[in-house]
């Protein structure tokens, strides 16, 4: 026996066995430096020694935890968010941004004064000319707000008075991966935490039985790839990463008990494991150990909560009818919208849907028509459904992609066919619900939907506004990592107050 054992002595017999395997040398090398440094750190600044540690107790049921980050900074309007991400870059020209003046300019070369030497993607940069391709879609004004919507979105046109259109979105990135990474994490390079992870880190969970941040992806879609880092936690503690729910038998992988195991002693096993991990954490002080423990507990609770929330059998027929026939087929966009509503009802804070296939480089009219058929009715249904349940007033709904598309045709332009390349300088998104102005259109583009001429909204501004709606000052929610403080908006971003109701 050596003296070191006293410090690690447990009152559990089995653990004591484990502890006996520690010899003095092992103990000294493993603990002296680490514990010494920790002790010194806490001497210097007792609170800061653990400053980057998430609050591991926050997921414990039935206790009031004061927000240790000092949030919310101001009264939040939004309690939950559903982000309907349209991956690939939907064409604003064929959906929302009506440009009648270019009807007469069919096939003419895009004036240099519009493009102003902007660098294009390799897909269209080598084209000899850039023929203007006016949308062949029929546009009409709808609702009291007289918002323009194309024929492709008949259901959405019914709810325009609940929507807040931003026609002047701008991003920095022209290719899919950096653009979508930028939209989701505030930086074009992988590694930063996603929006949902920031909100989870800042505000914690409202339902300890389900993850705070859940991702749903439309099944059987092809297009630009989606990576789990888009809903990743980056350098934030691991329990804040988004959890992907799949369609089919196992919505969350590895959650069900293995065959021939009844799960009866699971609780006992976890308690045991927790004790072991506690010893390990006392020794090394690695916050990842706590994150892992929290996730084991979450997985245990999800064994009951997930089957419950993913069970669609109690939804009446008229709800399926509202979302469309697709909604009966798990994993479709419509079914995911319906599932999202159920998750939001259970106070999941951030639900993110991804729908691929909006990348219409060729055959734009046909492609986008099919995309709208898959999504339009469910979008409108979701808004209506949230509204009638009284949830729209504290749920923020966001629709949008990573960038827009060009007014000129990529490839051959014919009377009823054209392709459109990526366009970062102007695109349309809409928001609805908590704290944003309903029936409102913000920002304007030029006659070509190419440049923003009024009230630009940069992705950073969008992030700042989103955080604002949750009661967070985007400049004050930071996380120290590798020697500097990071935030979702980096050093940019202004809250677009004109969008707020």
């Amino acid at each position, binding site marked *: 026996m050596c003296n070191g054992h006293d410090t690690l002595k447990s009152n559990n017999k089995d653990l004591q066995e484990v502890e006996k395997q520690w010899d003095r040398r092992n103990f000294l090398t493993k603990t002296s430096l680490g514990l010494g440094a920790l002790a010194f750190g806490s001497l210097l600044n007792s609170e800061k020694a653990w400053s980057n540690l998430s609050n591991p107790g926050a997921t414990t049921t*039935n*206790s*009031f935890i*004061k*927000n240790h980050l*000092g*949030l*919310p*900074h*101001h*009264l*939040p309007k939004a*309690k939950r968010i559903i982000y309907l991400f349209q991956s690939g870059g939907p064409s604003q020209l064929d959906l929302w941004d009506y440009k009648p003046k270019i009807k007469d300019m069919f096939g003419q070369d895009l004036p240099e004064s519009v493009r102003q030497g902007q660098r294009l993607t390799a897909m269209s940069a080598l084209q000899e000319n850039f023929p203007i391709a006016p949308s062949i879609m029929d546009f009409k004004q709808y609702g009291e707000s007289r918002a323009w919507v194309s024929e492709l979105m008949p259901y959405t046109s019914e709810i325009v008075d609940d929507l807040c259109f931003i026609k002047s979105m701008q991003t920095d990135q022209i290719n899919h991966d950096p653009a979508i990474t930028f939209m989701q994490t505030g930086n074009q390079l992988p590694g930063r935490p996603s929006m949902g992870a920031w909100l989870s880190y800042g505000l914690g969970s*409202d*339902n300890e039985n389900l993850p705070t941040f859940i991702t749903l992806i439309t099944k059987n879609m092809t297009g630009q790839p989606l990576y789990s880092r888009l809903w990743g936690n980056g350098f934030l503690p691991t329990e804040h990463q988004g959890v992907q729910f799949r369609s089919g038998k196992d919505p969350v992988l590895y959650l069900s008990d293995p065959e021939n195991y009844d799960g009866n002693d699971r609780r006992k096993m976890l308690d045991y494991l927790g004790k072991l991990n506690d010893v390990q954490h006392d020794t090394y002080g690695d916050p990842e150990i706590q994150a892992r423990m929290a996730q084991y507990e979450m997985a245990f609770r999800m064994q009951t909560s997930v089957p419950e929330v993913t069970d669609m059998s109690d939804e009446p027929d*008229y709800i399926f009818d*509202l979302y469309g026939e697709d909604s009966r087929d798990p994993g479709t966009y419509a079914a995911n919208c319906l599932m999202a509503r159920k998750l939001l009802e259970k*106070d999941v804070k951030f639900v993110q849907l991804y729908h691929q296939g909006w990348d219409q480089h060729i055959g734009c009219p046909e492609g986008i028509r099919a995309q709208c058929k898959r999504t339009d009715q469910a979008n409108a249904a979701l808004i*209506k*459904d949230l*509204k*009638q*349940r*009284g949830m729209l*007033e504290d749920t923020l709904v966001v629709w949008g992609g990573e960038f827009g598309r060009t007014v000129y045709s990529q490839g051959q332009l014919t009377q009823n066919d054209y392709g459109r390349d990526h366009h970062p300088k102007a695109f349309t998104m809409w928001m609805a619900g908590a*704290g944003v102005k309903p029936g409102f259109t913000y920002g304007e583009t030029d006659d070509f939907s190419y440049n923003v001429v009024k009230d630009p909204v940069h992705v950073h501004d969008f992030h700042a506004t989103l955080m604002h709606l949750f*009661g967070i*000052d985007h*400049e*004050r929610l*930071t996380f120290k990592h590798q020697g500097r*403080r990071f935030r979702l908006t980096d050093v940019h971003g202004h809250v677009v*107050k004109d969008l*707020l*109701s």
Partner: protein
Amino acid sequence: MQEAPDFVLFLGRFHPLVVHLPIGFLLFAFLLEILAKFQKNKALTAAIPLALLSGAISALVACILGYLLSLSGDYEANMLDRHFWVGIGTTVMAFLAWAIRMDKIKIPALQKLKPNMALLTLLVILIGVTGHYGGNLTHGSDYLVKYAPFNSSTKKELPQLASLEEAQIYPYLVEPILAQKCMSCHNASKQKGGLAMHTPTLLAKGGKNGPIFSAGSSAESELIRRVHLPETHEEFMPPEGKTALTEEEISLLTYWIDHADADFETTIANVETSEEIKQIAANTMALDFEGGKAMATTKLPEAATVSPELLHELSVAGFRIRELVIGSSLFDVSLPPNTISSNETAKQILEQLVLIKANIIRLDLSENNITNDDLAIVSQFSNLQKLQLEKNPIGDQGIVQLMPLKQLESINLYGTNIGRASLPHLSQLSSLKTVYAWQTNLKPADIPFGDKNLTEVKIVLGAL
């Protein structure tokens, strides 16, 4: 000015601590001297030299530390000089008093004048004077008598204005912020970083690193940079322990620098002023602001602080409690569905919330077997703005109970049994904006109800 080394300042900051030792020792010596006069107690008399020597030595240490502190250059030179010399005088006197008491020095001429008593009295006076000068250095010269009953002249009164536009930006909007948040360290007597703010000239002159603002460009202004830093940053102003500037205050300062070119005379009418700034200015000056859209700031009620123990108890009882704004003691309270299984226990559970009745702003009791009678408890939550009662067996009789909720803006009654008879009662709720009544006995034909109070209220009946 050359900044003193950190270690010197570190030692110097012990001055305010150590300085209390000589005060104590010397006053105690004085006390002993008086006692010794009336009571011939040898033990008491014997302690006097010790008290004097301790006082003198600690005074010497305090002097040295004080000198180190003065090297920071944060203090106004004249005031500092006086404190400095009187302090040294006191120390010298203390040593002298000790020497005389120990009969090490004899001044025959003074023998008849009871030198011990006289010197100690002088010391007490000197301590008072030194202390007063020192206090003025730290707290400002008007600190002591600011709130004295006889002092009424110092408060500067600005004339009340009829309209916002004629207000001079600096005296009405900027100076009050500086006075409240900055001038305790940047004034006539105390000039941290060589900066004084009590007159426009000195404010414009800046501190030892130069001007603190650049007219027309808040981005290049040190003043604005410092208040925007993270609170833990070393250069963040006001420093740790003092109240930080609010967002509104920062926006006023920025506005003054950017739009009024940091001019001390300009009025609001003369410069470009956004609606938002006008709104903030109007609030600051307690003026009504007509026109323009109101800022999206919902007024929050004041509520008493709630102990963490009580919140914990309520959480154990099953309530989920969230503080809406940190430190506000205003809560969003919800009861997870089906926590109340039978309506016998409902009252018992709900009554616990009465302890925080004024603190509840949003309340969610959906799907919890709440009945009409239980709503009498809810009606006590006078600051309630949002109430969710959906999917509970509630009828029109329950709505009658809710009449005291004058702040209620949104009520969710979907999936309850309310009907047409609820409408006259709902119309009595003066703040009400939205009623959710999907899947109730209310039919589209019931609306509009004809009551003009209800035309302001949106009744959502749902798509089906």
